[in-house]
C-alpha cells in the first residue's frame, strides 16, 4: 500500500513538473461535450465555446467583455439610408487554418461569406442538409430567412446584403455564433472527396485557435493559429477538459488540473473565494428571471389584478433566499448593463395591504392560481421551486391560494406556451446578442405568442414601439423607443420581473487577461498564463 502511495505521489509530481514545462498551456474545464464543431446548426453555449469562439470569426465581433459590435472579418461597412442595404468591406489577407486535412490556397474572400449564409438559407444548397436531421435553429430563430433578400459578391473583398425590410438588430445578429464564416474552399474539397460530414468534425476557420484533436466526452485540443489575422495569441495550447459535474470541476481547479472553469455551484463559491490560489471573477449576467401572467385568462386579464399580485411579492426576500447574494432585483425586462435601460421606471413596491385592497377593488375574491416552477436550475433562476414557495407564502397573506405546478423541463415549456395555459409561469432568458430587441421582441411581441411569449400578451402600443425600434438604425432614436416600451411594460405588468443573476468564473491566479462576457461566452484569445 505504501508503495502504491509512493507511486501515485510520484506520478502526480511528474505530471505537475511536466505541466510546468509547457508553461503556455491553458486548461479550461468545460461543462459539456460539444454536439459537434459546426457553429451553424448547434445551439448550446458549450458548442459555441468549443467551435465559433475558439476557431471561427464573423463579419462583425462583439467587443471583449461587452456587447458593442466592432469590425471582425469585415473591416468596415455601410448601411444605406433606407436601412435595406448592408455593404461589407472584407479584411484583406485573412488566412484559414492549415491542418493535416486541409491546406488553403487562397485568403478569405466574398465567396466564403456567401457560402456561410447560403448553406443555412437555400434549401437547394448541397450543404443545407449535409448531416442527417440537420436544423439551422439560430438562423431560423433570428428570422434571417424573413429579413434576407439577397447576399451578393460585389468583388473579392466586398459583399452586399439586401434586406426585405429594415431590421436594426441585423448587425448584432451577424456577430452571433451561427454567422461564423466557413471556408468555401475547404467545403469544396469535402464535396470532391464525398465526405461532407467532416465539416462538423474536422473544423477549419480563421479564428485564434486551430483544431488538433477531440476525444469524445473527454478532451478537445487546440493550438494557437500562427497566422491569425489579429496576431498570434499569447497561449500556445488550449485544452478543454470536459467535466460535466460541477463538484468535480471545483476539485480539478483546486488541484491545479485545470486553470479556469465555468458554472460553479452557488454552494462552492465561498470555498473557492477563500482559496489563496484562486481568483473568482463575477459579473451581472445578461439575463432575466421573470414570471409570466397569462393575460388572456380571467381574472389575470385585468391589469389591476396583475399589479396586485406583483405588489404582494417580496422580491428582496427572494433575492436573499434563492440567489444568495448572486442576483439583483429586476425592475425592467433588460438588465441595467444593457443600452436603453430606463432608470426612471419605478418597480412595484412591496405592499401586501395595498395589494389586498387592489384585489378587493377589482372585485376578485377567493382567487386560486396555478404557480409554475421550473424543474431545473438556470443561470437566471437557480431554484424556481423555492421561489414558488416564497411567492405562495406572500400570496397567502392577501388571500390568494397558489398551487405549485411543475413538469419535466421540455414538457414544462411546451405546456407553458399554450395560449390557454392558466396561471403564473416562471421562466427566464439569457441574451443572445446584446440587442434590446432580443429581449423585448423575442419575448413579448405578438408574433412570439405560442413560441416564447408565455404571457400571450399582445399590446398594440408596446408592439408598435418595439417594431419601430427595429426599423431605425440610429442608437439614440432606438434608445428612446425602448425606454418608452419599458414604461408600457411596467404599466401593463404582463409579467413580474424577478431578478438578474450574477455569473461567477473561478480561475487559478496564473491566468491573466480573461474578461467575463455578458453573453456568457468563454473566449481565450486575450488570455495569458504566467510561468
Amino acid at each position, binding site marked *: 500500500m505504501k508503495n502504491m*502511495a509512493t*507511486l*501515485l*505521489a*510520484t*506520478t*502526480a509530481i*511528474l*505530471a505537475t513538473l*511536466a*505541466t510546468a514545462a*509547457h508553461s503556455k*498551456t491553458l*486548461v479550461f474545464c468545460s461543462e459539456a*461535450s460539444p*454536439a*459537434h464543431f459546426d457553429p451553424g446548426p448547434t*445551439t448550446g453555449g458549450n458548442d459555441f465555446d468549443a467551435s465559433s469562439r475558439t476557431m471561427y470569426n464573423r463579419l462583425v465581433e462583439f467587443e471583449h467583455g461587452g456587447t458593442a459590435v466592432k469590425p471582425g472579418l469585415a473591416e468596415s461597412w455601410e448601411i444605406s439610408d433606407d436601412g435595406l442595404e448592408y455593404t461589407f468591406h472584407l479584411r484583406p489577407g485573412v488566412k484559414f487554418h492549415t491542418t493535416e486535412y486541409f491546406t488553403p490556397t487562397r485568403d478569405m474572400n466574398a465567396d466564403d461569406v456567401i457560402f456561410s449564409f447560403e448553406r443555412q438559407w437555400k434549401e437547394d444548397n448541397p450543404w443545407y442538409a449535409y448531416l*442527417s*436531421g*440537420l*436544423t439551422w*435553429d*439560430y438562423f*431560423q*430563430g433570428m428570422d434571417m430567412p424573413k429579413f434576407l433578400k439577397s447576399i451578393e459578391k460585389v468583388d473579392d473583398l466586398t459583399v452586399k446584403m439586401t434586406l426585405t425590410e429594415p431590421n436594426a438588430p441585423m448587425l448584432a445578429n451577424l456577430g452571433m455564433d451561427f454567422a461564423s464564416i466557413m471556408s468555401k474552399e475547404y467545403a469544396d474539397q469535402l464535396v470532391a472527396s464525398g465526405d461532407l*460530414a467532416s465539416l*462538423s468534425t474536422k473544423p477549419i476557420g480563421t479564428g485564434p485557435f486551430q483544431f488538433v*484533436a477531440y*476525444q*469524445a*466526452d*473527454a*478532451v478537445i*485540443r487546440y493550438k494557437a493559429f500562427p497566422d491569425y489575422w489579429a496576431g498570434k495569441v499569447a497561449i500556445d495550447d488550449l485544452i478543454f*477538459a*470536459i*467535466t*460535466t*459535474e460541477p*463538484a*468535480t470541476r471545483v*476539485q*480539478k481547479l*483546486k*488541484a491545479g*488540473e485545470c486553470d479556469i472553469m465555468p458554472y460553479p455551484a452557488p454552494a462552492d463559491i465561498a470555498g473557492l473565494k477563500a482559496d489563496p490560489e484562486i481568483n473568482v471573477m463575477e459579473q451581472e449576467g445578461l439575463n432575466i428571471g421573470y414570471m409570466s401572467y397569462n393575460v388572456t385568462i380571467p381574472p389575470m386579464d385585468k391589469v389591476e389584478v396583475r399589479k396586485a399580485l406583483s405588489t404582494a411579492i417580496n422580491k428582496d426576500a427572494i433575492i436573499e433566499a434563492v440567489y444568495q447574494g448572486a442576483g439583483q432585483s429586476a425592475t425592467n425586462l433588460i438588465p441595467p448593463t444593457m443600452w436603453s435601460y430606463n432608470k426612471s421606471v419605478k418597480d412595484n413596491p412591496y405592499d401586501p395591504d395595498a395589494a389586498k385592497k387592489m384585489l378587493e377593488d377589482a372585485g376578485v375574491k377567493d382567487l386560486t392560481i396555478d404557480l409554475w416552477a421550473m424543474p431545473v436550475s438556470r443561470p437566471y433562476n437557480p431554484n424556481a421551486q423555492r421561489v414558488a414557495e416564497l411567492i405562495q407564502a406572500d400570496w397567502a397573506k392577501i388571500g390568494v391560494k397558489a398551487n405549485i405546478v411543475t*413538469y*419535466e*423541463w*421540455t*414538457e414544462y*415549456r*411546451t405546456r407553458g*406556451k399554450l395560449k390557454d395555459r392558466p396561471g403564473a409561469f416562471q421562466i427566464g*432568458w*439569457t441574451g443572445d446578442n446584446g440587442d434590446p430587441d432580443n429581449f423585448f421582441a423575442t419575448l413579448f411581441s405578438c408574433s412570439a405568442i*405560442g*413560441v*416564447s411569449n408565455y404571457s400571450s400578451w399582445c399590446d398594440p402600443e408596446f408592439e408598435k414601439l418595439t417594431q419601430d425600434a427595429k426599423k431605425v438604425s440610429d442608437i439614440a432614436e432606438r434608445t428612446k423607443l425602448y425606454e418608452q416600451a419599458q414604461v408600457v411594460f411596467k404599466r401593463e405588468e404582463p409579467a413580474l420581473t424577478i431578478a438578474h443573476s450574477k455569473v461567477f468564473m473561478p480561475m487559478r491566479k496564473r491566468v491573466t487577461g480573461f474578461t467575463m462576457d455578458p453573453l456568457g461566452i468563454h473566449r481565450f484569445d486575450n488570455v495569458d498564463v504566467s510561468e
Partner: protein
Amino acid sequence: MLGYLARRIALLVPTVIGITIAAFAFIRLLPGDPILALAGQHGVTAERYEILKEQFGFNRPIWEQYFDYLQNVLHGDFGISLSSKRPVLEEFLTRFPATLELSLCAIIFAVALGIPAGVFAATQRGKFGDQALMGTALVGYSMPIFWWGLLLIMFFSGFLGWTPVSGRISLMYYFPSVTGFMLIDSLLSGQKGAFASAASHLVLPAIVLGTIPLAVIARQTRSAMLEVLGEDYVRTARAKGLSPFAVIGIHALRNALIPVITVIGLMVGTLLAGAILTETIFSWPGIGKWMVDSIFRRDYPVVQGGLMLIAMIVMLVNLIVDMLYGLINPRIRRQ
C-alpha cells in the same frame, strides 16, 4: 450440451424483442420532446415544429416507427444521433472500451479483496473480525455511489493529493487511440510515464465502481464458505491432518466458488448501472455518461440504441456464465 446451448439461445429471441419494445417505449414515455430539446431557448414556431416532426419521422404512427426501427436494427443500423448526427453504433463503440476498462478494473478490485475477505470472515465466524468485515460490507453495499465518489476525490485528490481528480490520463499525454483501452494504448504509445498516469487515473473510479460488487462478493463468499466448511469432506480433510490453509484454500474454497462465480456474472448489470454515476463524477468518457447526457437531450436514437446494446451485452455475459455453470455443474444441463 449443444441442446442446452440451443435452448438458451432460442430463449434469447423473445427477450431481445421484449428489449426492443421496452427501449423504444421507454424514452417515448418520458415527458419531453426531442425537437424542443434540440431547439434551445428560442423554441420553434408551430409550423417549423411540424416540418421537423416530419423530417425526423415522429409524425408517423408509433408502430410504424417501431417496425422501421426493428428492421434497421436487424441490419445493424441503430440510427443516427439527433445531437451529434453520427451513427449510434459508431458512437457506442467509441465509448464502450472506456466503460469496459473501468468495469474490468472494478471487478478485479472487488474479486481480489472480496474473496479473501469472505473467506477470512467465514473462518472467524461470530468473532470480531467477522462482524467488523460484514458490517463494513453492509456499509459498502448501502453507500450512495455519488457521495462516495466525491468523498474519495476530496480526500485522496483534494486533501492528500495522491490521485488525479478525474479523466483517464494526464492532459500532457496525447497519442492516438489504438485499442480504446487507455492502459494498453499508453503502453503502446511508448511515452514515459503514460502508463503510470493512466493507472493512477483508474484507481478512484475503480474503487468507487467496485465497492458494491466487493460487498456482495464478500458476503456471498462468506455464506458459501460457511456452507462448505460444514460438509463431510472438509471434516475428513481436517481429520487427515491437512494444514488449515490446505483445507480452506484447496478443498473448501474451490467448491464455495461456484455460486460466487454466478454472482460475479450477474454483477455485470450492476456494474453498468453503477458506471453511469461513476463516469459522471469522474468525467470518464464511457457509455454511462453518454447515455445520461442523451436522456437529458431526449436523443431518442441514442437512448434506445444504447439501451439495446447494453441489454444485449448483459444477456451475452449471463449466457456465458450459464454455460460456464453448466460446464462446472452437469446437473444444470439436464434440467
